[in-house]
């Protein structure tokens, strides 16, 4: 295989203004970096914005973004939503689902025949597609498996255990992972040799954030902790609000909880007056909120990279994460920038420690920042990405 000059990046949604999730942002950033490197990059996506409805909200067409060509295709509208929801509901609860039903779930998932046809009729050197759990990803893998690189963004969740996923993971040429624990999880679930994998991740740039700006702008005299991202049970935010509420009551410390991101905040009534909900904010405002926080807290178990964790470290803020997330715990251990808790009592001890020991807080933040600057700077990430794409993995080396 030759150098990857013409590359297609495929993702069901395109991150226009930071309004979609981490996986979309990751694919877009990798594509932009490839375009910046002088490659002919095409980003193939759908007209959908909402990942619940998958309605075609944007017009189909082609546009230029940051030196790459973005192709937006319509989502197939003939999907059987009722069947999809029924099977997905049973899957998420770990219920019994046959292989045929798994296939029906994929067929009625988000798909785009026009996108797949475009791929079939074009000549790309490489196709980089993700995340793993969409019908579109499965369809794309079928068109050019020998040129396809999967960015799985894999979590240990019921969908990862589907039998149809075995074919997806075993047929693609290679994998671009976000972290070492994600690679380990994939190899635990599927028969994949290390030779077909690379841990690439995402590059980040240090923000110029004043740690006192957020408190000044909001007239805050008390310490606060911050969470950024979607607020939903799968991300652990109801647990976070419960923990902070109990922490305030048990310790008598006036600690505020700051949220950025989208979704309803489920919290005990007594905590509402102490929540500052910023909603969607600019990267600068988010960085300022993080920079002044006592800690960035991430209670989510299912993460494959957790970009917000890295962003918090770049602002010099230490992190408290759930010990049940292999990825975040690994990142905290590697960086020396955060602590991990299994239960409320450990959380209480750790937050108290950070409030009482500013020198410890500063040192954890410093270590975290040094780690991100070392491991997640664009020159390191781009080198890993182009090495993986230009010197393709040997598929014969499987297992």
């Amino acid at each position, binding site marked *: 295989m030759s150098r990857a000059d013409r590359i297609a990046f495929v993702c069901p949604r395109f991150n226009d203004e930071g309004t979609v999730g981490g996986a979309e942002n990751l694919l877009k950033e990798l594509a932009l970096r490839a375009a910046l490197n002088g490659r002919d990059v095409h980003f193939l996506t759908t007209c959908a914005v909402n990942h619940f409805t998958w309605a075609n909200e944007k017009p189909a067409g082609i546009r230029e973004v940051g030196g790459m060509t973005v192709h937006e295709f319509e989502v197939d509208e003939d999907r059987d939503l009722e069947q999809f929801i029924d099977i997905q509901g049973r899957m998420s609860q770990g219920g019994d689902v046959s292989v045929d039903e798994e296939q029906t779930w994929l067929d009625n998932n988000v798909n785009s025949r026009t996108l797949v046809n475009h791929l079939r009729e074009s000549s790309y050197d490489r196709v980089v597609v993700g995340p793993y759990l969409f019908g579109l990803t499965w369809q794309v893998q079928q068109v050019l498996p020998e040129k396809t690189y999967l960015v799985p963004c894999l979590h240990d969740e019921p969908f990862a255990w589907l039998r149809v996923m075995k074919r997806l993971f075993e047929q693609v040429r290679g994998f671009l992972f976000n972290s070492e624990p994600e690679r380990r999880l994939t190899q635990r679930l599927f028969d994949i040799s290390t030779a077909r994998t690379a841990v690439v991740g995402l590059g980040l740039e240090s923000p110029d954030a004043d740690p006192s700006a957020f408190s000044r702008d909001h007239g805050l005299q008390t310490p606060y902790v911050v969470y950024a991202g979607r607020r939903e049970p799968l991300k652990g935010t109801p647990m976070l609000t*419960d923990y902070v509420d109990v922490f305030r009551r048990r310790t008598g410390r006036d600690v505020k909880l700051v949220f950025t991101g989208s979704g309803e905040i489920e919290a005990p*009534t007594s905590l509402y007056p102490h929540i500052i909900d910023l909603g969607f904010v600019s990267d600068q405002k988010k960085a300022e909120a993080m920079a002044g926080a006592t800690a960035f807290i991430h209670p989510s178990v299912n993460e494959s990279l957790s970009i917000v964790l890295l962003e918090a470290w770049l602002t010099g803020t230490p992190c408290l994460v*759930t010990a049940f997330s292999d990825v975040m715990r690994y990142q905290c251990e590697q960086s020396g920038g*955060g602590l991990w808790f299994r*239960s*409320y009592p*450990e959380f209480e*001890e*750790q937050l108290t420690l950070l409030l009482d020991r500013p020198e410890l807080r500063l040192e954890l933040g410093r270590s975290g920042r040094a780690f991100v600057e070392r491991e997640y700077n664009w020159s390191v990430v781009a080198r890993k990405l182009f090495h993986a794409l230009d010197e393709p993995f040997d598929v014969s080396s499987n297992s």
Partner: protein
Amino acid sequence: MMNDSLFQIGAEGIDTARVVGEIQKSVEEKIRDGIYPDPEIARAERHNLKNLQTQDAFMDYYMNCLRQAAYIDINAFEIRERRSFFAPALIALKKVIWKLLVFYTYRLWSQQNQVNGLLVAAVDGMDRKNVRKIQELEARVAALEAAKDANRS
């Protein structure tokens, strides 16, 4: 108590695994000393139970918290309003509603308290029974293995 030298900052930064390990030890000691059993903690852990199921020691502690949490406080509480606009009027309205409803809800809640208590007692009983059964089985396995070793020699 945690060792202060743990937080010494060296050239390599802080050994976070050691800090976390020390915190875990300290928490275990405090749990044994009865510092943590608290109904509020039992409620705070409701979203974390799936993860905690593998932690035997924690489940014992959680049962303790649950025993404390089973009987909820059904007495009057301070009525608040987080919307500052019309707050006094809204609080007054809520107080009136509370007074009208309390006659009916008090009976309902006290019955709920009885059910909670019975459920915790049942779970507790099952837990003790299972622990006893496992201990008996372990003792039997140990005795059988000892007898087998004795026969062999």
